């Protein structure tokens, strides 16, 4: 089941042949991303404007269908929003309007909102073999009891830093800086 947050191209990327059928890797299309930094009071105001509450619990995420707020640190969140249409213009437009709405909601409340839409690439690793394949390169315990659906964390993928987010029992979104994506993809094809 593709995740509605992401525009998902049909094209799948190569995966290690050891991964069984039904597991796939795709690079999601461009998405609006903001890093929001500020205290809990500021975060609460953002939630109202963004339409998704910014989670206060460590490693937590909140989402509606097409928007998500991912906890990154005690004063840092990654906000994701899918534009109505694919393509950079739609991303620019949504980023602009969201930035305006959030700024308006915050008023004089000190905070930082920075557009990082293009800083990241989202790699969608989905299917029954996803967790096992990830564990070729990610040292976290991905048992659903230890890493439940919705958990999100920055961590390491061998030598690359990633944001790992479990979007469903079998699906993961790997957010990494764009220039690290080929490295992550290359290792997933080799594992």
């Amino acid at each position, binding site marked *: 089941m593709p995740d509605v947050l992401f525009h998902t191209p049909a094209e799948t990327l190569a995966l290690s042949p050891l991964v069984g059928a039904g597991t796939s890797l795709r690079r999601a299309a461009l998405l609006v991303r903001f890093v929001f930094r500020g205290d809990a009071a500021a975060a609460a105001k953002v939630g109202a404007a963004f339409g998704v509450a910014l989670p206060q619990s*460590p*490693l937590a995420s909140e989402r509606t269908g097409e928007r998500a707020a991912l906890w*990154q*640190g*005690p004063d*840092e969140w990654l906000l994701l929003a899918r534009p109505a249409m694919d393509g950079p213009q739609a991303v620019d437009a949504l980023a602009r309007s969201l930035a305006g709405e959030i700024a308006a909601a915050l008023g004089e409340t000190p905070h930082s909102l920075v557009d990082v839409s293009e800083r990241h690439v989202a790699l969608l690793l989905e299917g029954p073999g996803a967790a096992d394949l990830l564990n070729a390169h990610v*040292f*976290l315990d991905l048992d659903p009891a230890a890493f439940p659906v919705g958990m999100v*964390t*920055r*961590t*390491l993928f061998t030598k690359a*830093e990633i944001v790992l987010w479990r979007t469903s029992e079998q699906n993961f979104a790997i957010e990494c800086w764009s220039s690290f994506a080929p490295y992550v993809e290359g290792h997933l094809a080799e594992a």
Partner: protein
Amino acid sequence: MLLIHCPCCGVERPEIEFRYGGEAHIARPMQPADLDDHQWAEFLYMRTNPKGVMAERWRHVHGCGRFFNALRDTVSDRFIAVYKTGEPRPDSATASGEGAR
């Protein structure tokens, strides 16, 4: 590889998610200009380097990004306690925080 309990994330993670940050509780003087050369050199360069329990700074650089402090026994290489920046140093004799696991 050590496991370190991050007091901000509330989880234990392998050491390579973290960066060592040197000895803790060495505050930058509010008015550096008021310090003479000797005092400034003490601040800059002198560290206790104990054999035993040491308070040190760590940063969960590949996690929540936060600096925090830890008590670690430099002999056994075991963490005795972790605590957030700004919190007082716990009593190492009684500390049995999650960092000690």
